[in-house]
């Protein structure tokens, strides 16, 4: 069974956020990266299929030099092949362009299952999986919380997480695409030694977007970010409670709540 997992590296925005000079985007120069949390669960789910039924796993990502680290991570974690569609400006690509690149790559391959995370931590559009499945003309299921059963080469039954505590169960014919929700499994720990070995001995298959016959250069984005800004926190109704010490503030808020007869 052939499984492809799409991986995205997202920047870690831990400290103060800096916008680019033209205020069109977030300054990502100098930021550290990690693999998008949802994709880690998708990766682990794929590796579980490898252990259980001997599936062959390909990890694919669209990115520049910084994304190599994510590919080495996937190799260290145990994928059979790591593919990097190399594009330095990948951070400027929108979901549709990424989906198009992935579609071109995938259509050159035979696959049974394609896994993505539900959405990315940075842009949070949640689109790539759905657009990709539609373009590949394969059935899709979003927000998968559990793979209930798998009949390799035939069909897969999944449970999807819905709102208000609801869930549904769907059967999809293979090949199919699933977007994976966090909490579906416990992603493994990939040790420093494994990473070192992957960096030294692992090989990443590098593809240029031009190889994917997307015509002239990159696919045109369907949306572009024109302005970035930091939201003002707070609202008209917000009142910060006074107090020198925490104990003061505690007393004050309790007094206020009793005063308003909420308590």
């Amino acid at each position: 069974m052939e499984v492809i997992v799409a991986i995205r590296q997202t920047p870690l925005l831990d400290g103060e956020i800096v916008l680019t000079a033209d205020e069109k985007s977030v300054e990502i120069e100098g930021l550290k990266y990690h693999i998008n949390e949802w994709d880690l669960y998708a990766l682990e789910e794929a590796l579980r299929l490898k252990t259980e039924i001997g599936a062959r796993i390909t990890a694919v990502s669209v990115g520049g030099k910084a994304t190599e680290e994510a590919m080495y991570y996937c190799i260290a974690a145990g994928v059979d092949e790591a593919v990097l569609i190399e594009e330095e400006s990948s951070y400027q690509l929108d979901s549709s362009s990424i989906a198009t690149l992935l579609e071109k790559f995938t259509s050159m391959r035979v696959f049974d299952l394609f896994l993505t995370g539900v959405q990315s931590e940075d842009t949070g559009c949640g689109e790539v999986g759905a657009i990709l499945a539609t373009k590949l003309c394969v059935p899709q299921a979003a927000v998968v919380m559990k793979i209930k059963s798998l009949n390799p080469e035939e069909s897969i039954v999944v449970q999807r997480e819905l709102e208000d505590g609801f869930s549904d169960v769907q059967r999809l014919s293979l090949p199919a695409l699933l977007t994976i929700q966090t909490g579906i499994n416990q992603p493994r720990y990939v040790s420093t030694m494994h990473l070192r070995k992957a960096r030294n001995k692992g090989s990443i298959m590098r593809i240029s977007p031009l190889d994917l016959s997307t015509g002239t250069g990159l696919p045109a984005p369907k949306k572009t970010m024109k302005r970035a800004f930091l939201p003002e926190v707070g609202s008209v109704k917000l009142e910060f409670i006074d107090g020198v010490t925490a104990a003061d503030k505690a007393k004050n808020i309790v007094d206020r709540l009793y005063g308003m007869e909420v308590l």
Partner: protein
Amino acid sequence: MEEQHIEEMKKKVIEAVSKCRICMSCYADCPLYESTRGFVTQGPSGITRALYYGIRWDALDGKDGQDLRDILYACTTCGSCEVRCKKSACNIPLVEIIETGRKLLVEKMVGPMPKQIKVLESLDRNGNPYGEPAEERTQWLGSIDPQDTAKIKLVQGDLKTETLLFVGCTSSYERDLVNVPGSIVKIFNHMGVDYGILKDEKCCGDPALRLGEAGLFEEMAEKNTKVFEQAEIKRIVTISPHCMSSFSQDYPDLPNNITIQHYTEFFAEQMSAGNLKPQKSLKKKVTYHDPCYLGKHNDIYETPRQILTWIAGDSFVEMEHNREQALCCGGGGGRMFVEIEEIERLSEKRVQQALDVGAEIIATACPWCYSQIADGIKTSGNEGKILVKDIAELIAESL
């Protein structure tokens, strides 16, 4: 990791465990066996035997691997078992075997325990196991007397210092413990010692090694060794016995001319030399809890007692289980970061042992012991009856 390396580790474990006589002496002081359901796999030779068969039967993956993982990672690595086994003449390195088992499981991507994964990630990213930002490591200096902090040399870049006070992650970030490094700084200043603290101090790496992440530990040790060499350090005084133990026993390339000391050793030296003269001022009954990494791992039992007797005189009382038989607090070996089901909490048991000898203060010399015991006092409902103090705090109070 090279397959060969894994095979070597497996072979080492098989050989070592094969020598076990299954005499069960090691169970006598095992804190895990004491505090859990009493299954054989919760004691030292039971744990190592489980690992032995896991290797023999190639059951290190999947569910079997996870079961073995749960067994291996419950150990606090206190070393009580090794002490007993040495005495009974088998001298099997039980803790080393257990830690090798952890290394194997990490390489098999079965270990560590899920909750410990973010600890390792934090060590790598932030230089501490707590997920705290690296930039906030020296913030604790803001909580102590500015007159004291003014005398501290913050070492970074080209700055050199002969004596380094290695604060450690817990003392740096744990707000409830800020009085401990604060006291140490006060004592250093009182003695007029010329010393420095690293501006960008990073974890000694002990949690990584104890959790089986040898590769990460190697990287951390290498980086720290470089920093120590660059600053031309001749003496490192640590607050935590874990850091001291790591530097002395685990660091592969630390220059021989660097003296590693736990602060109790350093202060005892200074007291003998007459540079530190605390008053005999402690009237309350005080007992001493031997941290496993100070006592069992490094044979430092009497030095802290000398200091306490100096300060407390006859008020010092000994618990029934002391020195090599001291009951582990349950914080070592990665246990600070994960919950193991206990029938009776080790920390609460230890607090009771202190109450049993009429102690009003439990003195200790390890931030994790301090944390665990403080917790144990709270959860056993003994707040107000007894309190925990670090030896450094007691010295500082007696100046």
